[in-house]
């Protein structure tokens, strides 16, 4: 029988290297997948995953066994994404448009934006909160309760966000149909 994630995490927190390696093997793709759905760009997701992996040993030291390991891991990824978004927003606000050195960087960004398909456009239009919610419920197949636990909000909020997202998606689909 396979050792549970929670037992592995407990062992890893206690210093078991093999347990940690196994845990990372099992969940690496999950981290990358969620990171991608949250930030929407492969390069960003890869960078984020690298950061998360590097920070995981220290974070795991605080493993309490109070939640399912995957819930805890999702929370780590979501928080790391939020930090990255905040940093990016601050950087963009601070430096944007102030001079020529900025132009080339922005040109590159525009190109990347054009390359994004319907999914990216839809997700980008939904806003960060809805995006986080959908990435967890649709992308990771979490229940509303689990998603609520990961995001640290109430279940009601998740339900509300999902219905809001539905409304927006329907509006987008209608627009597409009209176009």
């Amino acid at each position, binding site marked *: 029988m396979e050792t549970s994630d929670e037992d592995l995490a407990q062992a*890893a*927190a*206690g*210093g078991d*290297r093999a347990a*940690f*390696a196994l845990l*990372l*093997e099992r969940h*690496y793709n999950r981290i*990358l*997948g969620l990171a*991608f*759905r949250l930030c929407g760009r*492969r390069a960003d*997701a*890869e960078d984020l*995953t*690298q950061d998360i*992996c*590097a*920070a*995981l*040993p*220290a*974070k795991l*030291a*605080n*493993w*309490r066994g*109070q*939640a399912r390991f995957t819930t*805890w891991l999702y*929370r*780590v990824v979501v*928080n790391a994404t939020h930090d990255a978004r905040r940093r990016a927003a*601050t950087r963009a*606000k*601070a*430096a*944007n*448009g*102030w*001079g*020529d*050195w900025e132009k080339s960087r922005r040109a590159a960004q525009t190109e990347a934006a054009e390359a994004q*398909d*319907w*999914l*990216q456009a*839809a997700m980008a239009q939904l806003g960060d909160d809805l995006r986080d919610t*959908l*990435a967890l419920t*649709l*992308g990771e197949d979490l229940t509303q309760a689990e998603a609520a636990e990961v995001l*640290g909000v109430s279940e009601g909020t998740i339900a509300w966000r999902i219905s809001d997202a*539905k409304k927006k*998606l*329907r509006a987008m*689909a209608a627009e597409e149909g009209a176009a």
Partner: protein
Amino acid sequence: MSDEFDRLKDAMKAATPAPDAARREANIAAALKNFDAHQENTAAPRPTSDRPEGAGLMTGVFKMFSKLSTNAALIGSTSVAALLFGIYIANPFQPGATLPESPPRVGVTASELAAQNGNGEAAQPTTPATDDRVATANAPATAPLAPATGRDQPVIDTTSEANGRARETYAITADASPREEDAGASNVYSTAPEPAEMAETAAGQNFAPRVAAPLASGMVMPLAPTTADIVIHQMENTEEFANDDPNPVHVTTENPVSTFAADVDTASWAIARSSLMNGYLPGPDTVRIEEMVNYFPYDYAAPAAGEGPFRPSITVMQTPWNPNTQLVRIALQGEMPAIEGRPPLNLVFLIDTSGSMQGADRLGLLKQSLRLMLGELRPEDQVAIVAYAGSAGQVLEPTPAAERATILAALDRLEAGGSTAGQAGLQQAYTIASQMMAEGEVARVLLATDGDFNVGISDPEALKDYIATQRETGVYLSVLGFGRGNLDDATMQALAQNGNGQAAYIDTLIEAQKVLVDQLTGALFPIANDVKIQVEWNPAMVAEYRLIGYETRALAREDFNNDRVDAGELGAGHAMTALYEITAPGSPALLNDALRYATAAPESESGELGFLRLRYKAPGEDSSQLLETPILQPETSAPDADAQFAAAIAGFGQILRDPKYLGDWGIEDAIALAVGARGQDAFGYRAEAISLMRLAGALLPR
């Protein structure tokens, strides 16, 4: 209804990239490495033997004893300690029961001693336990998981009851952070189940709250190693610097023309100074060599009356760091208009009062600097102050400089706090400046900031256009930078360049004196706009050339004659120095071999090294004027002290940035050259530069 959801879900799953195998492997390996490092950090034995894992309160007390010398004091403080411990045990339920953080007094009187001894005996039932605990604490840790053994059962009973209470107390603090994995060591308190550990934790917490976290984590470590030991939170350094790669060597036959815009900024030197004074070398990206060279005043010939706003002068000298090349110095000296007849100034101080401006080297220095500057203004000049933090607001309406007290009082009222609404502030400052400006007067916005614009820029393009439009109306913008750590040099440079102004960095009051008092006229009165410099090198005389610095000011060759292209401004009395390193054909210092199939460079009889073209616009005009002069090979080469000093600073800048063209020439040579070229140095700037170069020499890797 759920069609969209299904579609999104499918798209989401389909779009999720397969992990890159190599990246995955590397990431996992890095994580494992960190894991090992983490184990080493947390599992390593404590460096001092007197803090075994079961120790907490009592080792601290013991340490105190070891500091006391006389017997009487020892006896006295023992009883004080016993007394304190007695109180602690006796009242475990007293909320916030604390122990004093300071060691007991040494000089106690006999009567106090007696009284304390008496009290100590009154607390007798618990003191034996104390002694027992002391013994435990003093012994090396033998059982990490069970630091307190059953020997002193009564104490454990008492403290484990206390523990229940402590748990309640700490559960609140620990849960203050909703993010579990970030809660760090504080979570230890809410979850660690061992009563003895909890007692220790509680004791540690009561004894010295500041050190409680690492103390506690050390003690409960085997169960739950925490990050408290290894994670050191550093203030994030968000400095941004504008720079490009150093200019390369060009082959004259391929690329004979070099074009760049004038630059009289000095920020880079002040930033380098602030780094060196703090004991570290400035990063290569912070070094803009032209700004370092231009920081120093040189004794260039001023233009004669009616000659034009500035006079170019050209010197050719031996390159200090390469015996086979020459340095061509192109200097522009701006005219110094009659100060008596200057038009009234309209100044708007736009002051960043966001939270990041807190501190003596920021808002404090800024206030002092503006106070200094106020002394230089004429009674008819006008001053307004706009502060911006979370929102922008006019702090002082336009006030004649004669009303010094009013202006000083407004300055003193400024306080730092909040985020930075840079755009609203700039717009308000420009509005006020244009209202203040009467016909024929000069208006300037002086932006004082650490460059951290973090809120309120809704549309950066619009703001940039806005600044450029305001430039057309004659309102100029100068930027004064303050503080390190989040200095956004890149934004400040861009603002000043778009606003026809200068950017300076103020690190000391002395620098404020230089920028705002000694060079006030130059900083505030423009004499030539959009000054562009173009040099065409003669391939018969110059095989290779390299412009030292001016990377951020490079212009395309065709933009030289295009009056719509913005360039640098010269203020009254400003001087600008540009240095080219040139290599003659056939010189052993040539870096590029001659091409076999290229046409040979034409023979030239003229003896000209090259041809210098300058373009500038008089303030307020739209079309530029052209100045032309040949660069001649000098008959004798006896360079003046100014040229040598400029070369020494250019060499120093290259050492800091990228010394690849310098060969064996090092910081000692730069210092020797600068020392020999100190000249008059009335203000002591060059002497200061030499001190800084020596400081840098000590910091440079050998």
